[in-house]
């Protein structure tokens, strides 16, 4: 009932005719394609011979085979043609060449314009769709690295094709780039949100311990990591008197309100280079919240990192946190106390 109604009326008839035409065109296309395939197969076949070995060392003797699928029956006595660069030394003869394991009845070699053309008269027929393998032991690869073609052509089947033998690894494309060691260093606030070059201990009093802190941020691709050292221009001083320095590590000194003391704690943090570690040197390690002396007039290494480091834009892990602590007593002279600290970053070697 549905189909009966479907073909009722002109509109549905037109749709039906259109669909029929589409079906016809599709069928015709498949048919012609099939015919076309057979037609070209009868006329000529582009083949891709397989060269074995596909890679070889320069100036090396050995067996070279050229193989492809033969398109049509080649009777005994058919002459097939092999072309190759005359940079290959040696001559193909019936003694050092076979076609499918059978010695040819004749081979003639003509060299012209750097190409040797070997006409090989096969000693046995080769069936259609069979693999045809020319095996040669009389050639030595060129002494210069390069990609060299072997080209074959046959009558009757009209097979024709070429492929490369890569001599001296000339096919290996070596991509080289020099990436220099780069080293960058910044001093950032504790939250790693802004640059800083001042650590402000504020106004000291005998009832509090004043602190300030900042982060040392090193980025480098140096494979062996980096070193951070420090040196100061002198003690924390007002020009006439200096604050008592803490002891050097590994223990350091506790800072207690009311007892004059100055120093810093170093938290080395981490680095994100694979397998990397950060190690503090002994004078800068301390116990608990103890501080260590920050009074080295000669450069002293604070920490070492043994791998590259690529901290993020804000990174509280792969950066080192330095905290200065100050306490004064009633005898501490008044005035503006300051100290100039230089952090020195070098790549490890």
């Amino acid at each position, binding site marked *: 009932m549905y189909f009966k109604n479907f073909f009722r009326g002109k509109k549905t008839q037109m749709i039906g005719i259109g669909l029929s035409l589409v079906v016809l065109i599709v069928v015709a296309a498949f048919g012609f394609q099939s015919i076309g395939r057979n037609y070209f197969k009868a006329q000529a076949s582009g083949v891709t011979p397989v060269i074995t070995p596909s890679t070889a060392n320069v100036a090396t003797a050995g067996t070279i085979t050229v193989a492809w699928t033969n398109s049509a029956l080649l009777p005994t006595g058919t002459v097939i043609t092999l072309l190759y660069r005359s940079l290959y030394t040696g001559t193909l003869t019936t003694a050092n060449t076979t076609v499918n394991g059978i010695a040819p009845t004749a081979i003639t070699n003509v060299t012209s314009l750097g190409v040797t053309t070997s006409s090989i008269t096969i000693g046995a027929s080769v069936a259609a769709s069979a693999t045809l393998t020319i095996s040669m032991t009389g050639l030595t690869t060129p002494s210069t690295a390069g990609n060299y073609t072997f080209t074959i052509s046959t009558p009757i089947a009209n097979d024709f094709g070429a492929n490369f033998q890569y001599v001296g690894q000339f096919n290996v494309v070596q991509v080289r780039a020099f990436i*220099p*060691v*780069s*080293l*960058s*260093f*910044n*001093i*950032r606030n504790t939250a*790693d949100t*802004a*640059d*800083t*070059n*001042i*650590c*402000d*201990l*504020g*106004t*000291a009093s005998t009832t509090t311990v004043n602190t*300030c802190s*900042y982060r040392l*941020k090193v980025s*480098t691709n*140096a*494979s*062996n990591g980096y*070193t951070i*050292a420090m040196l100061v*221009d002198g003690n*924390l001083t007002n020009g006439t008197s200096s604050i008592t320095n803490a002891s050097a590590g590994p223990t350091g000194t506790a800072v207690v309100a009311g007892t004059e003391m100055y120093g810093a704690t170093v938290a080395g943090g981490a680095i994100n280079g*694979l*397998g*990397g*570690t950060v190690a503090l040197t002994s004078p800068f390690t301390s116990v608990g919240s103890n501080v260590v002396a920050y009074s080295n007039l*000669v*450069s002293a*290494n604070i920490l*070492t990192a*043994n791998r590259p480091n*690529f*901290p*993020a*834009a804000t990174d509280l892990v792969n950066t080192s946190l330095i905290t200065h602590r*100050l306490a004064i007593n009633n005898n501490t002279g008044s005035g*503006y*106390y*300051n*100290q*100039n*600290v*230089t*952090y*020195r*970053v*070098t*790549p*490890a*070697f």
Partner: protein
Amino acid sequence: MTKTNSPIKALLVGLISILALATLPVNAQDNNRGLIVSPAIFELSADRGGSYQFSVNVENNSENEDYSLTPLAQTFTADNEEGNPTVSAIPDGSPLRNWISFNESKYEIKKGQKAESKFTVNIPEETAPGSYYFAISYTTKLPATNDGAKVVLNKEVSALLFITVKGQITRNVNFDSFTSYSQFVDPFFDGLNLNYKIKLEGNAYLKPSGNVFAGNNLETPDSTLTLNPNQKIILPNTARNFTMQTNPNLDWGFLSFKPSSLPNKGEILKVSDVKVPWFGSQKFTAQVLYVNNDGSLDRKSAELQVFFFPWKTMLLVLSVIGLIAAGYYGYWYLARTKKI
């Protein structure tokens, strides 16, 4: 209807999320790397009387600071056996003070800008053959403050320059030690740790090259590893530690040690996996190659025997068997005493 559309919605949401995530910066380095120096390591093989030009790119990648940088040539020594330098001023009166001259005495680099710092290395004719070491430093110098208790913070970044003046170069290379973390390694549990220390005597630095061979026959080793994949340098009259670390890798009965990806481990191996027996001893031979002054190739070797024995695995298996046996016995005992 809603149910039918939910997978499509989920797919769309997922796709949009992936696209959104893909557009996010990964580990972005904004303008806060500060003072950048590149290249940071130089090597120079120099002739006596020679003059050599170098340039260093110095960049101000700070957020809000303009840098006034002072270039300075210093020297360095090895601080330890891990390749960390100790930089110090060239002593007064040392002829090295005259070796390096900068084209500029100061670099004013505004934020976001960079400068090319050129310097010349002049090797005096009378220089003795051997290696010499310089740190090419760039320092920010800020004035002291007179306001409260403040610590002024300066930055200095140094490039290292290794110079070898040609002539009679002597190097005496020796293995100070070649050890494994453990002589008895369970190949199914343990990683393989190889540690070696190379000591160098002479008048020139060495970037050791060579291999560590695994196998009882050196002529046909089971696997070959690069001795110094990170191109570490040993200064003369110092020693340098090297560590290799691998993890066990089991693949259908084939046992090998894969390069380590665990943190806090040593050098990453680059050439091949280490093939080891699951039971038995394996010899490791570390061999460093170096060229003598007359051009001849010399080598020094050290050997280490490691015994592979799955003792941890066996303990585990025995423990499991023991537990099962104890369970059975307990069950049997309770059943016998009719408690269950």
